[in-house]
C-alpha cells in the first residue's frame, strides 16, 4: 500500500514545477511538489533574465525578495563591437522607466530567491512541498494510477498519484523512466559558464555579444546584477570549438573589445550549466506522465531563455491536468497527449519556428556570413516590431 496519495506529484520545484503546482492547486487539485535540493535554485545555474509580462501571465508579482535589478532594454553587439541599442526608456518613455507610474521591461532575478518565492506561492495555494526529496522511479498500477518512489531525507516513501509531472530540469531522468528519448544532441546543447563580477559598469540593459570569435555556436552576455555587480558569461557548442566554456570566457574577458571595460573585474561567483538550443522533445508524455520546462526542452532556441517558457508551460500543464482530472478521464498516454497538443498550439509551434531559424544560421559554414546572420537575427528578435512573437 502506498503511504501517500495525491492527484498529481510534481518532480522538481524549479520555475516550471512550482508554477504547475500552484496553478493546479488553485484549480482544486491535490498536489505534492518534491525537490531533491536543500535550497532551491542553488547552486545557481542561470543568469536570471526574465520579462515582466512572463511573470504577469502566470500571476507572479515582481517583488524585492528576488529582484536583483530592473531591465529596460537590450544592446546587441556584432563580433567587432558595433552595437544596436534597443532601450525602451527612449522608445516608449511614457511607459518604461524607473520613475513612479512607469515600469521596467523585465528583471534580472536571483534564482535562489525566485525559486523559493515560487514554491512559497504554491504552498500558499495548498500544495504539499517536500525538500530533500529525490524521486527515484515510477510504476503504472493496474488501477490506472501510478506510484512514485521518493527518498525523503532517509526515508523511502511510496506516493500514489494520477499523474506524475517531470519538471526535473536539464538533467531530467523522469522521461527515461517511461522510455522517452530525452537526450539532447551534442550539437544542440550550449555549454555555459558565467561569472558574477564587481567593477564592471552596466546601464539597465541586457547586452548580447555575437560572433564566432567570442562564443562559437552560441553568444556571450553581460547582464546587470544589482548592487553594482554584473554577470559576464557565454555559451559554446562543443562541435564549433576545441575550447571549453571556461577557456572561452577567459579569452572573451581578456581579448575582446571589452577588455578595457573588464580589466578590473573581480570574480564573486562562478556559475554554469547547459542550455538546450534544441527542438522541444517530440514526445513529452507517457502513461500517467507529462514533462514540462527544461525537462521537455522547452527553451527558446534563439535566446536560450527558459524561464518564460517554464512559467507558461507550467500554466498549460496545470490547466490541462485540472481539466482532465475533472473530466474523470483515464491517464493513459493517449489522453496525456492532449497536453502536448495544447502546448504546441499555445507555445510549441512558435518554438519550432524559432528552431528552424536557429538551425539555418548555425548550418552556415562561412563564419563571417554566420556572424552576420546571428547578429541580424538577434537584433531583429529584440526589436519592438519584431516579427517573432516573443516567447
Amino acid at each position: 500500500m502506498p503511504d501517500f496519495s495525491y492527484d498529481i506529484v510534481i518532480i522538481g520545484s524549479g520555475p516550471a514545477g512550482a508554477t504547475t503546482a500552484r496553478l493546479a492547486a488553485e484549480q482544486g487539485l491535490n498536489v505534492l511538489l518534491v525537490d531533491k535540493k536543500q535550497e532551491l535554485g542553488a547552486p545557481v545555474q542561470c543568469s536570471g533574465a526574465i520579462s515582466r509580462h512572463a511573470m504577469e501571465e502566470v500571476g507572479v508579482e515582481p517583488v524585492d525578495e528576488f529582484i536583483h535589478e530592473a531591465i529596460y532594454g537590450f544592446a546587441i553587439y556584432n563580433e567587432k563591437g558595433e552595437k544596436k541599442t534597443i532601450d525602451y526608456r527612449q522608445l516608449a518613455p511614457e511607459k518604461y522607466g524607473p520613475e513612479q507610474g512607469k515600469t521596467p521591461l523585465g528583471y534580472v532575478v536571483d534564482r535562489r530567491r525566485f525559486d523559493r518565492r515560487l514554491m512559497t506561492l504554491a504552498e500558499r495555494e495548498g500544495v504539499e512541498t517536500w525538500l530533500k526529496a529525490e524521486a527515484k522511479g515510477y510504476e503504472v498500477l493496474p488501477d490506472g494510477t501510478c506510484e512514485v518512489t521518493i527518498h525523503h531525507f532517509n526515508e523511502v516513501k511510496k506516493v500514489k498519484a494520477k499523474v506524475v509531472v517531470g519538471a526535473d530540469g536539464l538533467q531530467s531522468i523522469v522521461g527515461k523512466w517511461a522510455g522517452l528519448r530525452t537526450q539532447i544532441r551534442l550539437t544542440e546543447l550550449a555549454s555555459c559558464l558565467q561569472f558574477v563580477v564587481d567593477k564592471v559598469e552596466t546601464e539597465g540593459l541586457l547586452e548580447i555579444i555575437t560572433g564566432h570569435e567570442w562564443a562559437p555556436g552560441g553568444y556571450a552576455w553581460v547582464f546587470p546584477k544589482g548592487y553594482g555587480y554584473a554577470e559576464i558569461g557565454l555559451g559554446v557548442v562543443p562541435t564549433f570549438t576545441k575550447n571549453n566554456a571556461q577557456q572561452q570566457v577567459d579569452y572573451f574577458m581578456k581579448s575582446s573589445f571589452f577588455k578595457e571595460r573588464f580589466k578590473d573585474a573581480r570574480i564573486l561567483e562562478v556559475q554554469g550549466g547547459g542550455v538546450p538550443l534544441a527542438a522541444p522533445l517530440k514526445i513529452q508524455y507517457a502513461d500517467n506522465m507529462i514533462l514540462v520546462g527544461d525537462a521537455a526542452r522547452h527553451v527558446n532556441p534563439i535566446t536560450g531563455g527558459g524561464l518564460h517558457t517554464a512559467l507558461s508551460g507550467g500554466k498549460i500543464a496545470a490547466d490541462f491536468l485540472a481539466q482532465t482530472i475533472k473530466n474523470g478521464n483515464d491517464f493513459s498516454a493517449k489522453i496525456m497527449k492532449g497536453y502536448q497538443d495544447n502546448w504546441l498550439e499555445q507555445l510549441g509551434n512558435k518554438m519550432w519556428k524559432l528552431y528552424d531559424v536557429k538551425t539555418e544560421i548555425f548550418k552556415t559554414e562561412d563564419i563571417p556570413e554566420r556572424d552576420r546572420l546571428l547578429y541580424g537575427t538577434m537584433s531583429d528578435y529584440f526589436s519592438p516590431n519584431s516579427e517573432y512573437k516573443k516567447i
Partner: protein
Amino acid sequence: MNKPVLFDINWNACINCGACVAVCPQEEPFISPFDTIAIDRPCDIACMVCEMICPVTTITHRDAVPSDYPEGKVTEAFREGEKRQN
C-alpha cells in the same frame, strides 16, 4: 563500437550542472548523486559526448577492466571490445 570506459570526475572543478547527463544517450538513467554521469560503473557506449559538453572539462576516463563491473560480471560490449583489441 567503442571500448567500454570508466569515468572519473574531478569534483573540485565540477559545477554539478547536469550538462553531461543531458547529452547522454543511455536509455536507463546513468547518473551519480551529483547530477553527473555515473562513475561507479563502466559505460559500454563510450560515445564521449559527456566529456565534450562539460563547461569545465572535468571528466576523464580510462578503459574499463573486469573488476569495474558489479561482481566482476563483464558485459557483451566489454567482451566485444577485448576481442577487437586482440
